């Protein structure tokens, strides 16, 4: 199990950041991903693999309408 924005999410082996965002349908372009306190650069979303127990923040920088 992993945490995504404080909520439980099932983990599986080889799950990448890019795959996770796609599964969550997080399509907004201004998004920051932080794993266990460390920011993942956008160009590393595909190659960054999520470990079981990771705490992930997927912060959408959108404050309006």
């Amino acid at each position, binding site marked *: 199990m992993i945490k995504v*924005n*404080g*909520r439980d999410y099932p983990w599986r082996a080889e799950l990448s950041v890019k795959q996770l965002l796609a599964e969550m*349908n*997080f*399509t*907004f*372009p*201004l998004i*920051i991903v932080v794993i266990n306190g460390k*920011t993942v650069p956008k160009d590393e979303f595909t190659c960054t693999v999520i470990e079981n127990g990771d705490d992930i*923040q*997927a*912060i*959408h*920088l*959108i*404050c*309006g*309408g």
Partner: protein
Amino acid sequence: MNLEEIKNSHKLLGTFNYQLGQIDKGYTNRTLYVNLSAKTFAEKPVTELMKQKFIGGRGFGLKLLWDGINDNTKWNDPENELIIAPGPIGGITQYPGAGKSYVVGLSPLTQSAMDSNVGGYFGPFLKFSGWDALEIQGKAERDVILFIDGTKGTVTLEEAPLEELNSHILIEQLTEMYAESEEDKVNVSVVTAGEAAQHTLIGLLNFSFYDTRRKAVRIKQAGRGGLGTVFRDKNIKALVIKSIKIRGDLNNPHDLSTLKKVGKKMHKEILSLDDSQCQMRKAGTTHIVKIMNDYDLLPVCNYKFGSDPNANNITHTVLISKYFNLNGHDECWYGCTLSCAKVINSFKLKTGPYKNKDVIVDGPEYETLSAAGSVLGVFDPEFVIETNFYCDTYGVDTISFGTLTAFVMECYENGVINQDITGGLKLNFGNAEAALELLHQMAKGEGFGVIAGLGIRRMKKLFIEKYGANPDFLQDIGMEVKGLEFSEYVTKESLAQQGGYGLTNKGPQHDEAWVIFMDMVNNQIPTFEDKAEALFYYPMFRTWFSLVGLCKLPWNDIVPADNHTTAEPAKVPEHVQNYVEIYNGVTGSDIDNNELIRQSEVVYNFHRVFNLRMGYGTREFDQVPYRAVGPVTAEEYESRQDRYDRQLKEILDLNTAEKTTEEKVRILRNYREEQYQKLCDAVYLRRGWNSNGIPTLETLQRLGIDFPEVAEVVKKYS
């Protein structure tokens, strides 16, 4: 009829000559007062106290309105006013989004003080013509045009019987009439409403600007709250202003070099990053449709649902590929590199009085794609564009039109009203033709359009009293707060945004607070205290734009490349610092980001007391319809059953398998309604208000607005 004949029909009712004066650090230090009943004019000084406390824009509008009316004034009394004010930063050309002005008056929908922001050239031209605000009171006997000639220092009030009323024709006629040449058209701006503004309570105002590359007059809208209806109630056909040629130093700023430096940095940021971020330069605000649909936040069928597979038909992809013309002038004020004012150069109308005409359409923007589309269960871009055009030219707010029509459709589908009542209109969800016919009826002041044009709050009362409708059901599905229709976001899964709509001064409009993603998706504000802090900071921060004359979009629809490394990326700290520097650069002040918030807090609390003075502004008026909070019907619940069942299990430890849908709807409702009340308590506390939502005397004292007439209002409720 040619323009010469139309112009010759004008009858001069009054003239006012004034010294053009000098702008000093963003202010002209005077406002222009016009009384249409008495046909009189006056120059009012702007005091230092007024600048310190009310700053400009919406702040000036609220102060002038407060002083101009009495406690019993109604929206259609002659004492009601329309005030237009740009703010001290308004009109600079160095930084994007600096051409906004603010319209303030008593709203026919909310019966209290309304403010609506708008682009276009009129606001900056007003300042460059010598005025920090235009304050109009009284009623003309017949249709008039008020013309401010900022090149000569004259104001004329002219009876104007022959011009068309609908905006797309009227603005062309008046631009042509008051410009001395083709080159001079760029120095003329016009404010108009339209035929529907005089038959409904949801009238808007169009503010024009001349697009030199397309050689066409374009318009932006002050849409919310029915201020176009007030305009027509005063028998104003148009306001026209003619300005001196625009230069970058006309505000006579304290420090022009700072404006240039900060502006240059921002333009560079937009040009290098927009394409990889929100693509505002290509898509404008339309890029939001797909995002809202993806996150289940796009209103569908009167906010029952948050997404629909057919929404792909009305996204920015379709608009860019088939409709938008991207080869022109898409900024609504000089120097805005974000350039979000998208336009359709040529669109052939299929219905109404201008059927088969090719017209230019400004927009559609995000809100209209929902209001004239998804919220009605309509996913035809051509219908959206046609409705966009007719709402603008008739002078109708697309948001209120869409939200109230969606309410009518749900009433129709539930048998609250029928074809006998609608005059034969089959107002089912998805019936685009019927919705357009309703709009045409509003313009003509005929049929069911007259009833719909009253807005949701009055329709609810009418349907209950006349047709025996269930008041609880109508309260649940009627998407209005304080009498104003909701703007276009589904808030069911964001408690904070429910407050962002309910705990507002003017009603549920997203320009005050929009915290859905912080709350629902990012889960950054999980506690009541966190939500209350967000509902303190963001409304105050956003209010500041309305005081100084800025557009919100360049704040966070583009962000610096390293924004994610800052402590609070959602606030976009570098841009906040830009605003501090620009404000100081124009006015010569020395504020910081804390003082910026305090400036807003003063006006925000004054607005709250204003509502109180008019008989509103307490807790009962902050309540939202349950459709904004959770699923009203079994249909809604079952459409997202997994989500709701999971919440009942995780939060309330409920065995959902043992419950019927109706039981689960009721249990969820009890829980969510209780949460909303707790949110109210937390927000009131954070804002320095008592448990009834009234600013305390200590709060007014802290903010320095415990003026006798303000404190007296609050004391009545203490």
